[in-house]
């Protein structure tokens, strides 16, 4: 006969209650997260129209009690692509080369310092990078401009790209390196023609993740890019960007502009979701 401890009943009840609490906590915590995504999809989706993607800002017009703004956010879409694109161009060489250094010359004091510095960069609040770009460039040139925003975003992208490149290059099997060494290839030739191509897809996903993160950053842009109501392709002048529009249109008193804010938020969210899901799908097949 199995004997039970005298306090077994109480302990079993505590066990049930606490396990229930863990499940409950997970459900409760997921509710706001589902709500956020749901609201963004529903309210953002309802503001989507052809004009949303093809027109720039138009001042709200009052027709009687009805305030309308038939404009869209094309200027923001163009601006975000330009700013974040230039940021990617700046960050990619630095991040990938630094990542190669960390992976190919892994254990020395320089590599330790570089790793520490990438940690510092990725830990720094994005507003700090904005403050630095503002004091260093906006104050000295005396003007807000799109390219300053690109530089600030590049600083935020570099640690992500560096660390992904390093991690991925370390996953390339050592035997591949040895095979190319056995053929007499110097280190740089083997890195560029054997190791990098093997890891290329994963590096691209790292860059995409960094792109998605940078495209959603707002705080540095407030201090560097400023924003623009007109469609502009000039990175040397203030230019619009999607997250900036989300922020500014949220602060506007006109419901039509608030709707546009939901629309831009949906565009940003969709972009993040798309990049993350495609990265998840791509890496699932690669690195099993």
């Amino acid at each position: 006969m199995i004997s039970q401890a005298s306090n077994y009943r109480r302990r079993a009840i505590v066990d049930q209650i606490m396990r229930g609490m863990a499940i409950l906590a997970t459900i409760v915590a997921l509710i706001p997260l589902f709500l956020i995504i749901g609201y963004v999809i529903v309210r953002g989706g309802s503001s989507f129209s052809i004009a949303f993607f093809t027109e720039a800002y138009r001042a709200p017009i009052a027709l009687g009690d009805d305030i309308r703004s038939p404009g869209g956010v094309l200027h923001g879409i163009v601006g975000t692509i330009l700013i974040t694109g230039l940021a990617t161009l700046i960050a990619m060489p630095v991040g990938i080369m630094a990542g190669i250094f960390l992976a190919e010359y892994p254990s020395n004091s320089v590599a330790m310092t570089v790793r520490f510095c990438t940690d510092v960069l990725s830990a720094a609040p994005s507003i700090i990078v904005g403050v630095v770009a503002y004091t260093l460039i906006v104050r000295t040139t005396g003007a807000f401009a799109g390219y300053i925003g690109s530089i600030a975003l590049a600083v935020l992208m570099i640690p992500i790209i560096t660390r992904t490149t390093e991690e991925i290059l370390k996953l390339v099997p050592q035997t591949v390196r040895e095979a190319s060494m056995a053929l007499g290839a110097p280190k740089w030739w083997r890195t560029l023609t054997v190791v990098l191509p093997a890891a290329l897809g994963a590096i691209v996903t790292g860059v995409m993740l960094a792109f998605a993160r940078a495209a959603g950053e707002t705080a540095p842009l407030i201090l560097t890019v400023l924003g623009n109501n007109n469609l502009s392709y000039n990175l040397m002048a203030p230019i619009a960007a999607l997250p900036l529009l989300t922020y500014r249109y949220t602060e506007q008193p006109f419901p039509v502009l608030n709707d546009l804010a939901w629309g831009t938020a949906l565009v940003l969210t969709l972009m993040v979701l798309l990049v993350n899901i495609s990265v998840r799908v791509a890496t699932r097949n690669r690195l099993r």
Partner: protein
Amino acid sequence: MPQDTQQLTTWQYIQRRTQHGDVFFWFITLSFALAVVGLVAVIGFVIWNGSELARERFGLSALFQDGWNPIRGNFGALPAVYGTLVSSMIALCLAGPFGVLIGVFLTELCPQWLKTPLSFFVELLAAIPSVVYGLWGVFVFAPFFRDHVAIPLANSVGQVFPLLGGTVTAGRSLMVTGIILAIMILPTIAAISRDVIAVVPNHQREAMLAVGATRWEVIWKAVLPYARAGIIGGMMLGLGRALGETMAALMIVGGQKSRVPESLLEPGITAAALIASELPNANDFLHESMLIFMAFVLFGITLILNGIARMLVWYSARGPVGSIRA
């Protein structure tokens, strides 16, 4: 050249032939890697240099003086310091227990088929731009909170505790900011908790089960204590994120800069929000310098928090080899 080669040993000759151009390659990658170090140096130098005026004029005491009014020359940053600390602490107190419980659920209790999608969903949420959280907070959560929580709370409990009282006018307040920040840092804490709980060795659990513990007793007495350092590290990373969060705070906190709010249900300000809203149109050098000084302090605090947190997570993930940790 032939004479040269003859003086070399065969091994050196092979090295020279197979390492042709490697020094150049090393130098190029090294210089890009050092560029990363240079960036950190530039950031540190610029905010140190830019805050010089404020540091010399006020020193750290300005951070603990009430009354922010740049036009009159009053640079008491206490409202921002208070708002930052209070909103982040609210966020941590809410997100901490929830995050750990999610981590426990994901590693110990979750059915296998739910584990991957749920983990992925949690990670996805960490990637959503903060401005989206801010937007949702402004239009959905703040009005809801004002009507259904803040006003009833202020009229009942608030009569006794002034911290939850005051007159609730706008929906924007430190409390709402704290709750939104909690939602934002929850994925961070949950993901790290899950990771450090997942590496707790199974013999910890098995030993507890063998002496007749229930599942919860295994979790509470064997798993969580073992993963404690990592969990605390995850919470500190979350706290660091909450302290430096700009957009959500800027949109929801209400921007009441002149004094420390008496109640959590009144509008306030955080340091990051203050910097973002005032730096682009600062009145004078002193004003600007004071804002950069606050950025400097913020940078220092987040760095220290992150450093400790990373050490704790690393320590926890490494685990003791052959030793028992309480």
